[in-house]
């Protein structure tokens, strides 16, 4: 008997593994790096509704584009922004105009919560001092308190996070879902361990991945992955660590396009809803992609 490959097309992956209303969707990548944009664009094309969107400690265009698509009801996040390029326009507008519900949290909440979700832990208690912000006050559903049985003191807790689906970008995977992060892992590996269903997009499917890098570098075990999608340059306009850098011009263009409805819907048509994901690279242009491939470190 042969092992079953998990490599399928991007449209099939989203069709099969994301429900029409997704209870909670975690999206990998941090700032303008390793965002699983190919999968995210396809989620928008297929108009999957997202009840709760969960970002890494620093969401970027991955979250902002989804929010801008109008598919997201609420967001659990500690940051959505474009780092040195500015604020995230759709996130900002959504929160200010209350078209999305915000579950305000901090970075450790996401890290502890995913850890708890991954390990079957009922919660994670915070180190002392982190209860001093105003965050627990505005998120009493998720931030709670219990007794430290060793000192008798009250401690703040993070709730477990168990995303229904996680969309993650890895640089390379074998056909069975075993995968690597060439550069930083961010919280992507935690999302993989915590989610019920994981869809991986990769730059490249590599049959003998462990031989190529050594097995200790391959720290995503295939049995946690439901589908592998090959999507070269699939992080564009964000970077893929070790493959290519982010497209600053495109990101700035995005920010500009977000300024009014018309130009935003033009952006949407041009890069998301108006084209199949298979044609996205072409839309950006081979020359531009090659330039981005020249940038970025740690090849």
């Amino acid at each position, binding site marked *: 008997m042969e092992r079953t490959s998990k490599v399928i097309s991007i449209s099939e992956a989203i069709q099969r593994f994301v429900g029409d209303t997704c209870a909670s969707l975690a999206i990998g990548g941090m700032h303008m790096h390793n965002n699983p944009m190919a999968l995210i664009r396809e989620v928008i094309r297929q108009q999957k509704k997202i009840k709760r969107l969960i970002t890494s400690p620093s969401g970027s265009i991955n979250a902002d584009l989804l929010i801008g698509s109008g598919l997201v009801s609420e967001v659990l996040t500690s*940051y*959505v*922004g474009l780092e040195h390029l500015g604020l995230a326009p759709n996130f900002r507008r959504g929160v200010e105009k209350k078209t999305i519900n915000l579950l305000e949290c901090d970075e450790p909440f996401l890290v502890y919560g995913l850890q708890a979700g991954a390990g079957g832990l009922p919660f994670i208690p915070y180190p002392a001092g982190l209860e001093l912000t105003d965050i627990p006050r505005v998120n009493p559903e998720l931030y709670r308190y219990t007794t430290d049985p060793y000192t008798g003191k009250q401690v703040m807790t993070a709730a477990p996070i168990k995303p229904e689906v996680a969309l993650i970008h890895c640089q390379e995977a074998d056909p069975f879902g075993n995968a690597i992060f060439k550069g930083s892992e961010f919280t992507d590996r935690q999302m993989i361990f915590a989610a019920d269903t994981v869809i991986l997009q990769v730059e490249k499917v590599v049959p003998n991945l462990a031989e190529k890098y050594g097995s200790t570098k391959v720290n995503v075990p295939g049995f946690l992955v439901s589908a592998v999608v090959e999507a070269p340059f699939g992080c564009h306009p964000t970077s893929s660590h070790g493959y290519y850098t982010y497209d600053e011009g495109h990101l700035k263009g995005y920010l500009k396009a977000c300024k009014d409805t018309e130009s935003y819907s033009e952006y949407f048509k041009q890069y998301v809803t108006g084209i199949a994901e298979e044609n996205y690279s072409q839309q950006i242009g081979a020359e531009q992609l090659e330039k981005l491939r020249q940038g970025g470190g740690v090849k």
Partner: protein
Amino acid sequence: MSEKVYSTSELMSCVMARHLKNGEVAVMGAVSMIPMAACRMAQLTHAPNLYYITGGSGAVNPYLEPMVPSSCDDELLRSDAALALPDVILLEGHGKRLDVFFGGGLQIDKYGNCNLICIGDWEKPALRGPGTVGLPFLPRAGRVVIYTMSHNAKTLIEKVDFNSGPGFLDGPESWSTKAKDLPGKGPALVVTPLCVMDFDEETKVMRLKSLHPGVTLEQVVENTGFQLVIPDEIPVTQEPTSIELEYLRKVDSAGIVRNM
């Protein structure tokens, strides 16, 4: 006043670099080009045993030269070591691992509390900020160095609308009550385009430490939204030495800090 051979952001980098001691460990988050350059420069000058971790990348001692703007860039992985983000969170939670934590905010108040969440009421914000990421760890960091590129009365205010990065809380009393068992010593330094500030030991209120060359006391007072502690003598911030500038520009050959 003669033409300056350095930019204000370069001066800010130098101030921060001088503050870092040999053998310390520093950490920073997003949009941290000035502290990054400061750390690397400190390593190349007086603090070769300094360690620094650049935010989400998990990079330990990135070689930087040439530096890049994003805190999660793979260029930063040309470094001594690299940690997965959950490991960085362990270090931040531990309480005795990190000597210096670089912070900032949309608003910074007189007690050094920072706000990256919103201007106005959280329920109906006039401006929604990006979010607070790791700033809640501030009370567990050895000491906090705050910086901002916006020294004005809207940024430096009496009290933050939302406390997402605790400084001395509501002042000496609340600090000594709520933070007495915490490992952090609180905010230590504030660096802006106009001046350097620290905190009065007694009142825990921000105190003018030095004025950048060419900046007047009036300018600072006018652009600060609360009553700063003004000492009797106010020195001028020491200009970058030629050695400092040489190393800073070696690190920042692309002029990212210089042209901020």
